[in-house]
């Protein structure tokens, strides 16, 4: 990967981090408000993000990316157990912690050290999944 692309990926991340904080999508309170159906804010964000992403994918699909490879979306495997069970477990954690992985990183940057502990828990969970993977139904 050329240096300039590394910088570019970093900067796209900066855009994401700033947006997550300024929109308060990184806020524990906003996540609780979302799950308690108290405001449209989070739903509006997710829905409008999907629309923009959808248009972007439509425009770019089949074209060549700046780094070279052709732009294409790989289909996800249609084995449903993992999405149902894994999705439910993720959702539980999302509500309990009041954050998902992106906002967690932004909040560590914003100076909330407890999110480092949350992040450590995520690494632990990922590791245990890696250990149990072959034994789990997918």
């Amino acid at each position, binding site marked *: 990967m050329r240096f300039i692309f590394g910088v570019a990926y970093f900067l796209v991340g900066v855009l994401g981090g700033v947006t997550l904080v300024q929109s308060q999508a990184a806020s524990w*309170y906003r996540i609780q408000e979302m799950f308690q159906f108290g405001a449209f804010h989070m739903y509006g964000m997710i829905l409008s993000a999907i629309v923009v992403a959808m248009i972007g994918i439509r425009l*770019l699909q089949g074209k060549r990316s700046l780094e070279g490879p052709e732009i294409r979306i790989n289909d*996800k495997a249609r084995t449903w157990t993992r999405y149902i069970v894994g999705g439910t477990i993720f959702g539980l954690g999302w509500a*309990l912690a009041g954050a998902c992985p*992106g906002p967690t990183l932004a909040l560590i940057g914003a100076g909330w050290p*407890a999110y480092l*502990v949350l992040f450590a828990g995520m690494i632990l969970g990922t590791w245990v999944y*890696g250990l149990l993977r072959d034994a789990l139904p997918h």
Partner: protein
Amino acid sequence: MSAKREVKDVQEIMTQLWPWYVSGPLLGLIVPLLLWLGNKDFGISANLRHVCAMWPGKKPAFFQYDWKSQAWNLLFALGLLAGGFLAGYLYPGDPVSLNGTVLERIKSWGLDDPQALVPVKLFALGALASWKVWVYLLLGGFLIGFGARYGGGCTSGHAITGIAAWQLPSLVAVVFFFVGGLIGAWWILPGLVAWITGGAG
């Protein structure tokens, strides 16, 4: 426009809440930006796997691959940290103004009015003096990490990218994110927070 005026404008923008119709499209823009740069998929939780793959010792087969080939995503994650620093540390904004019913409910669990982006009793440095907060954080993190890999993605990969790419598996995953989320938010979190704060729940 004078330079001084511009600095003031930046401060104003950075201390205000960005409405959903600005912040949502900005987040969505990340998907085509990453595709356009190098056909990369927006998926933040994949980085948790890459961090595990960095472990030099014995590790499960799931983590035996060249994580350096995914360096772009780790750089993206570092960008998220830096963005959070820029926005949250340099320009601390107004406290979160919540829906009144939600606020009353949260306060009944023993939390105070929002003083910052997140509850001080759960996430400030001082909160880490309580072992209960460690249990809370590690439990939440564990479920997120385990669930995201088992389910093949998190909010960025499934809810935004996957649905935008018409992936039915992602839609199913997001529906169950909400099944788990509603169970957690309504039946587990009230008691859990009250247990930490010593409040009613």
